[in-house]
């Protein structure tokens, strides 16, 4: 396509640059303002929050609200303190990530490195799990966990969800890109399948493991529907599960505890957000390479 030659003058270029930055600053503000609003409300007394809502004022209630959110429970049993929920979230996130990576690597290893009659069949069985999101099989899944007596347990929270097509495909893709000569050399040197996996494949996959770990940790930490259904004991609540309790407790009471509730919401987002920010390059790698 031919258009007439257009040249920009120096002030015009400057104006364009300001426009570009303006768009980006607006976008960044759109993303961050809601969270700053939560933070602001945690510094104010509850009475003020109830009457005025979010404002520009900064109060002195931050540490008081933090203490209430982390060490006081609002339930009947007194078990769901912030610290307890943080612990449960951590177990769910770590268990999820570790489980999915171990199972995914094992399955990918079997599919890529072994002569096996039903490799394609196994691949398809794993693939079809993508067609069955938790939300469409939620009731019967609940019943099975109930029959197995796994309600209100960590096993029940983690195991039913750790089969992972995403992790399996991610490692399958990566294993396939590893040069053939490597396994030939390893076999000449007398390495068996177990030694090859532990001493060569796992160390080689370190970056991939880190990338997948971040994605799956965030994914596990942020689980909502499953923990909501299978945990009823307050000492098994995760932070994200506790959110439901929080919003419900804001409804009925005469003086809703916005400071405490918002503090818990902030504690719920802080660990995954920090991980994503600090391990950004691994995170982006895990995300863009696992979904394609």
């Amino acid at each position: 396509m031919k258009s007439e030659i257009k040249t920009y003058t120096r002030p015009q270029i400057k104006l364009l640059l300001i426009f570009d930055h303006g768009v980006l600053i607006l976008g960044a503000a759109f993303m961050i303002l809601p969270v700053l609003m939560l933070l602001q409300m945690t510094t104010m007394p509850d009475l003020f929050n109830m009457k005025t809502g979010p404002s520009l004022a900064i109060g002195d209630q931050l540490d008081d609200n933090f203490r209430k959110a982390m060490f006081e429970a609002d339930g009947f049993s007194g078990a769901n303190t912030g610290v307890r929920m943080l612990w449960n979230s951590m177990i769910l996130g770590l268990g999820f990530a570790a489980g999915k990576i171990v199972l995914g690597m094992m399955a990918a290893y079997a599919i890529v490195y072994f002569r096996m009659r039903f490799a394609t069949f196994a691949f398809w069985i794993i693939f079809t799990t993508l067609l069955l999101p938790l939300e469409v099989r939620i009731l019967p899944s609940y019943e099975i966990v109930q029959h197995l007596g796994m309600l209100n347990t960590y096993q029940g929270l983690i195991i039913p969800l750790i089969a992972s097509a995403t992790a399996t495909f991610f490692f399958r893709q990566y294993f396939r890109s590893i040069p053939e000569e490597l396994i030939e050399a390893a076999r000449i040197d007398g390495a068996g399948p177990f030694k090859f996996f532990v001493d060569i494949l796992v160390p080689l996959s370190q970056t991939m493991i880190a990338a997948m770990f971040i994605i799956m940790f965030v994914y596990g930490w942020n689980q909502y529907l499953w923990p909501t259904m299978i945990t009823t004991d307050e000492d098994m609540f995760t932070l994200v599960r506790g959110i439901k309790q929080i919003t419900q407790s804001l409804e009925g009471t005469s003086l809703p505890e916005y400071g405490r509730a918002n503090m818990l919401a902030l504690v719920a987002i802080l660990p995954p957000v920090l991980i994503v920010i600090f391990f950004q390059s691994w995170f982006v790698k895990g995300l863009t390479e696992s979904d394609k």
Partner: protein
Amino acid sequence: MKRAAFTNRWLPILLLVPQISIIGIFFYWPAIHALRSSFYLQDPFGFSETFVGFSNYASLFNSPAYGRAAIFTVCFTLLVTILSLGIALLLAVKADKVVRGAKTYRTLLMWVYAVAPPVAGVMGLILFNQSWGPIADLFKSLGWDFALGVHYYDTAFAMVLISVWKQIPVNFIFFLSGLQSIPKSVREAAMIDNRSTAGRFWDVTFPLLAPTGFFLLITNITYSLFDTFGIIDTVVKGEPGNNPMTLVYKVYVDGFRGNDLGGSSAQSVVLMVLVLAMTVFQFRLVERRIHYT
């Protein structure tokens, strides 16, 4: 499979057993169970069931509530997908262009990926609070009597806005990495041929981003259907009442709140067919996907 593979017989089976057995117990069995229950009518106490053929499906497709939820789901999905893709594309193009502060902008625009959907819902509840929510106040000053949870369209608006907010980062990351994979030589050639920035974008950059766009289209539809559950549940506070809800949320409400196992299972099966159709569609797209490199 590699040429130089191991020939061990039992080891691969052993390696696959944990994954496959979890899939069998927690994926296939529930799915089959849902399929079966969709042809039965259960009494409310769970003591007996009778085979009713397709009557659960018939009453589903004749139910006005299901029709309303289906229409809402389509509109909701379209709005969330178009808005979050559009905004993310604009931001990615700008973030790819600027030099100063590029890394800071990138971080500020992607961290929301890690925010759990129900927490996003909590922020929405405050922003749209009827007595002092900042956005609700803004609308009221413009003469729009905004009432979350009371007016159908107001609640729908809040759900769309929160869902878009939560989805922008994923789209941004993929668009940005798509943009950055366009070779420098191609960009420079385009610069020589076409001096107008907009013209260059639509003639060169946009077509090169098409594969990423198609992929994101499917991702966003899936997100709008399934991953918005936490947002919707928080915004309606678990009390669906007269509020808008998506088909996925309705499966949960009818199954758990309504105790209508047969009807809920029929809805699950309809959704499974929908996901199947989308996956097939995605694969045909991927097969035809053009690679320019």
